[in-house]
């Protein structure tokens, strides 16, 4: 297996507080959708924040394409090609859709290229073109999530990390979000996803990671994780995968 990102036994927490992650590990393969599941407080979001540089890693390593990311700032990690969309979607509510997309390409120096890429995104997501001049804060939850996900594509990232993209969305819209993820994956973008709805997350992923109390319990192909009786009992409410 050729890993794109390798997280090895990391310990991390907020400020001087107790460690939320203690022995978490993760292997991310290129072009696949990876889903992290686990109960509340397992450290799923913390793991993403640690990878993208928002939290200091106290122990362990995060290695991306052979380069150690420990100690790097979020903007430096973004320049390496890792994008993170947190739970709250991280939009700028008083900026228009187009301005939000421009911010998505903040690290790009070539203005013309940025505008070309924005046009490309608006082409692929007609709903965003329709609302290009509308303030992001006035759009529906699904539209905001679409914008947040589409915005990551501006810099042509290697990895997009999505923290609970389905949060607060209607089931029909949730499926649309997973469809966008699959489209990203088909285009070669690796997706790392935290999903509270473990069944749906794993069904739409290639690789599953089970996190509990800050450490990785299990990782493997999503189908294997789904079929594991312990996982079904603990995290899928005893439901059998269809």
């Amino acid at each position, binding site marked *: 297996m050729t890993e794109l990102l390798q997280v090895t036994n990391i310990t991390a927490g907020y*400020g001087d507080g107790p460690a939320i992650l203690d022995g978490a590990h993760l292997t991310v393969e290129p072009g696949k959708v990876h889903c992290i599941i686990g109960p509340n407080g397992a450290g799923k979001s913390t793991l993403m924040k640690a990878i993208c540089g928002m939290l200091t890693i106290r122990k362990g390593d995060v290695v991306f394409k052979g380069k150690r990311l420990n100690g790097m700032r*979020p*903007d430096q990690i*973004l320049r390496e090609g890792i994008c993170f969309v947190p739970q709250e979607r*991280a939009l700028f509510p008083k900026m228009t859709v187009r*301005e939000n997309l421009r911010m998505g390409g*903040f*690290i790009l120096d070539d203005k013309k290229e940025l505008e070309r890429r924005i046009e490309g995104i608006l082409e692929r997501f007609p709903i965003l073109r329709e609302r290009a001049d509308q303030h992001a804060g006035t759009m529906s939850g699904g539209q905001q999530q679409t914008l947040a996900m589409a915005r990551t594509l501006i810099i042509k990232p290697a990895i997009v990390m999505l923290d609970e993209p389905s949060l607060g969305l209607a089931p029909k819209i949730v499926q649309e979000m997973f469809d966008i993820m699959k489209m990203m994956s088909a285009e070669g973008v690796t997706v790392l996803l935290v999903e509270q709805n473990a069944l749906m997350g794993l069904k739409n992923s290639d690789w599953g990671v089970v996190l509990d109390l800050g450490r990785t319990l299990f990782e493997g192909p999503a189908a294997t994780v789904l079929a594991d009786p312990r996982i079904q009992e603990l995290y899928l409410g005893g439901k059998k995968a269809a």
Partner: protein
Amino acid sequence: MADILQILILGLALGGVIALMGSGLSLVFGVMRIVNLAHPSLIIGGAYVTYWAFKMTGVDPIVMLPVASLIMAAIGVLLYRLMFERETKSAKYSEMTVLLTFALAMMVEGLLGGLFTNTQRVVSPDYATDAFFIGDLFIPKGQLYAGIVSLVIITALSLFLKYSRLGYAIRATTQNREAAELLGVNVNFICILAFAIGIGLAGAAGSLVSFVFSFFPAKHWEWIAMLMSVVVLGGMGSILGTVVAALLLSVIAAFVGTWIGATWSTLTFFLALFLILLVRPQGLFGEKPEMA
């Protein structure tokens, strides 16, 4: 009718200067959540820079404005790095800045008092005591020039925020600091830049204030209440709101001063602050605060 027009013109010209005085305060709050109670004392700092330049070299206050602005911006960078940078992760950051800037205001007042005494000063270029006359209308040149220069600076600031790359970064940081950081904005640099611009605006306002009002080191206590009224009415962090509120309140204050009595005009600002906090705490252009 001519009376009304006269009051309106005087109110608007003064409102322009007050808008500039408030816009730096609003920017600094919007980006960094710093409630800068020391802002008016730094305006007075800018006024003293202009006063001494005028006294020693005779340089016009409007010509001196960019220099005073740059000097105060540099002081702003120093203050931010010394006082605020290390506290940005604090959970009570905004509350802490109130105390820090209160202390800073007293220090600046003490320093200016020690250096320049508490004598009232005013810069007197020729136009400060001259006026245009259009029919029955009387337009003081000093107030008019100060109002126009203020609005030009605010327009330039707005265009910078709207169209420049750094302006995008400042607006993004104002709206969602974490998101800005995740998209590659060096938020710490943007905070330093915004603070420098904010204090630079205080310096620019100081240059204009120096020939519109008389000033002395303790004058800032009068101005902070007036500026907070303007910024709160406009919506904390909104430059447009600050401008609209400053023009509105200045015009109302001018009418109150003329029709009821000059001593009552200041009350306009405090009454507005009181009413806006009761009726619409988020101000004219601010966002409604989330309930816990």
